[in-house]
């Protein structure tokens, strides 16, 4: 009997190549696509107007692309509907986080609560030994038996940041074949195999907000959003905000301020419905508190390179555990725009040690 794997196929080039690579290795491959985004199923909106064209990560056309690739590879392919789970675990959280004045990372949350759990269950169910995705990250087994999570070989495409919350029992079941390649190599494979997706554009947007109008999306789902004061760090009122959920820490554009030098959002104070703005230099902070901790590696280091937003290399810092789920991070150099709600991931020489969620930032309280 051939060994079976389940490949999560998004219709993009990375997961298509992942499926092809597993097939080349001799596995019995089953392709699956998850539909997550709620916007697609409605052909008409309540008013009878056509729904906005969606080309998010799981639009019907991406599903079709995945099916074409699967057909070309000669593997069975299924579509799993996870819309209600996605709505509950990702979108509701996304909205709630903004309401709390934080800036969530829904892709990480989806990986944490939906994608992998669900796929692993299906994989076991279908007698598969692993779940395969097209993420740019690498897995290695440590001599002591546990699985290590490393940055992808293509550092510019590395996605380990959104995978850091995966647990050992999940990593045991996962394969990331394209993490061993560069994006160019992946596109080459797709072209050589004529998969038809080699030159497809990358999906950079949130899959459930294909029109990129996050403010509009939030406005439709949040109640009690009130305009409020914008103050500077001296306590002076300098303007009005439209409602805190529509802003993010570090933001400069769209504040409607008429100051001589540029002002940046420093803090979203939900309790007082107040935004604090300041100069770029005031965005710099040296420390933060991280909670919702999870660890890939059992050893805990006192120092690490800490990455606190997607597609940035991170910066060296000292870690200090202050409680079972509270870790203080002190950067060697002050950092710009540490944003509550975003993930903080701790690396050592390109290997993920663990990660968590930025809870508070600033020096005063730490």
């Amino acid at each position, binding site marked *: 009997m051939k060994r079976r794997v389940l490949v999560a196929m998004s219709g993009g080039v990375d997961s298509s190549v992942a499926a092809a690579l597993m097939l080349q290795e001799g596995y019995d491959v*089953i392709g699956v*696509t998850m*539909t997550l985004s709620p916007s*697609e*199923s409605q*052909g*008409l909106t309540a008013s*009878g107007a056509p729904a906005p064209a969606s080309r998010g990560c*799981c639009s*019907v056309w991406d*599903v079709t692309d995945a099916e074409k690739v699967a057909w070309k590879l000669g593997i*069975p392919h*299924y*579509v*799993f*509907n996870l819309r*209600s789970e996605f709505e509950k675990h990702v979108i509701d959280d996304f909205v709630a986080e903004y309401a709390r004045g934080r800036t969530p990372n829904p892709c990480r949350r989806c990986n944490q609560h939906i994608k992998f759990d669900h796929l692993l269950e*299906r994989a*076991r*169910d*279908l*007698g598969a030994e692993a779940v395969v995705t097209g993420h740019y990250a690498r897995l290695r087994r440590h001599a002591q038996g546990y699985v290590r999570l490393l940055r992808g070989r293509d550092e510019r495409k590395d996605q380990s940041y959104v995978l850091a919350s995966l647990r050992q029992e999940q990593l045991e079941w996962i394969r990331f074949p394209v993490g061993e390649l560069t994006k160019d190599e992946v596109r080459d494979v797709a072209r050589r195999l004529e998969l038809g997706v080699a030159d497809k554009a990358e999906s950079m947007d949130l899959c459930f907000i294909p029109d990129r109008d996050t403010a509009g999306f939030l406005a439709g789902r949040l109640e009690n959003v009130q305009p409020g004061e914008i103050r500077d760090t001296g306590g002076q009122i300098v303007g009005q905000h439209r409602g805190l959920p529509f802003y993010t820490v570090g933001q400069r554009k769209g504040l409607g301020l008429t100051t001589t030098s540029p002002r940046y959002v420093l803090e979203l104070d939900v309790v007082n419905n107040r935004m604090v703005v300041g100069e770029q230099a005031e965005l710099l902070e040296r420390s933060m508190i991280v909670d919702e901790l999870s660890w890939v590696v059992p050893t805990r280091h006192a120092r690490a390179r800490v990455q606190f937003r997607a597609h940035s290399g991170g910066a060296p810092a000292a870690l200090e555990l202050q409680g079972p789920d509270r870790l203080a991070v002190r950067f060697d150099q002050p950092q710009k725009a540490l944003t509550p709600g975003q993930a903080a991931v701790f690396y050592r020489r390109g290997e993920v040690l663990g990660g968590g969620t930025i809870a508070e930032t600033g020096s005063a309280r730490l």
Partner: protein
Amino acid sequence: MRPVYLDYAATAPLLPEVRDWLTHSGFHSAGNPSSLHRYGRQARMELETARERCAAFLGARVEEIVFTSGATESDNLALTGTLEPGDHFLVSAVEHPAILERARWMGAELLPVDEGGVVRPEELARRLVPGTTKLVSVMWVNNETGAVQPIADLAALCREHGVLFHVDAVQAAGFLDLRPEQLGIDLLSLSGHKLGGLSGAGLLYVRRGLRLKQALAGGGQEDHRRAGTPNLSGLVSLGMALQRTRTDVSPLKRRLEAGLALLPGAVRLSGEAPHIAAWRFEGWRAEPILVRLDLEGIAASSGSACSSHSLEPSHVLQAMGLSEEESRGLIRFSLGWDSTEADVDRVLEVLPAQLKVAQKR
């Protein structure tokens, strides 16, 4: 091993006589039935022979048959061709989306169903507003469960109050007697591909004397009720499918259900239609079961699939009072002209093992 196809309610394998006609006989693709020349005449004869067959099947007159692109168009046309904006009309909560989506948009009132998925005539009587209600639409056989509606009683009620009655009979054709005039049905939708014809061809029966607003403007085909060059090969195959002698698949359904009933957690949801077995298995969503069956070469289905064929909870089961989670569990086996005992036995051989493997983990 012979693949097992038990999804006739989605679409049926092409009938051999249709395949023969397409490949060997006089079908001439150059003929437009509206043309003057001999090819036009031949096409016209093919088309009108098909119409005669459809009319004979329904005990209707040829002028009562409006050919369409399929049941979705027929269903839409039944509503848009008879109703004015603001008209009060009723559709059952378990209709096919072809009715339901259009009806929602036009502001229909939903007729609830009982726990068997059936519209009770007294429920219709309670909601009919004499002198105001313009139309009622209820499907003959439900496509997800095979529930058979009391069409004769519902039709009589409508007739009594002068209300138009439309029936989506897609799943009833080939399995039940369809005599719209006898029962007092004003409008009835059919499609060919569920019976082994080509897809893309259907009809709307429109009772003589009932004026239908033009659906598509154009060349005036179909007696000015539905313009456009007809899908000749599809409509000929529709006529052939309706002319075919009915296959009685009810012994196969009984055999299948006797076996399914023994499986752990099995809950029967089937209606009385002879070709649809609808079940769920306690604790199971449909998807994993259908995937396992497919990997074993058995094609079955769940009630409803969206455009990306991922499964949504069944609106039919929800209307019958099942929870959203239970409504994700519907497994539908549907039988047809080429179904055999071996097909059924293969399901009963594979399914128990698949359910057991998963429960062990």
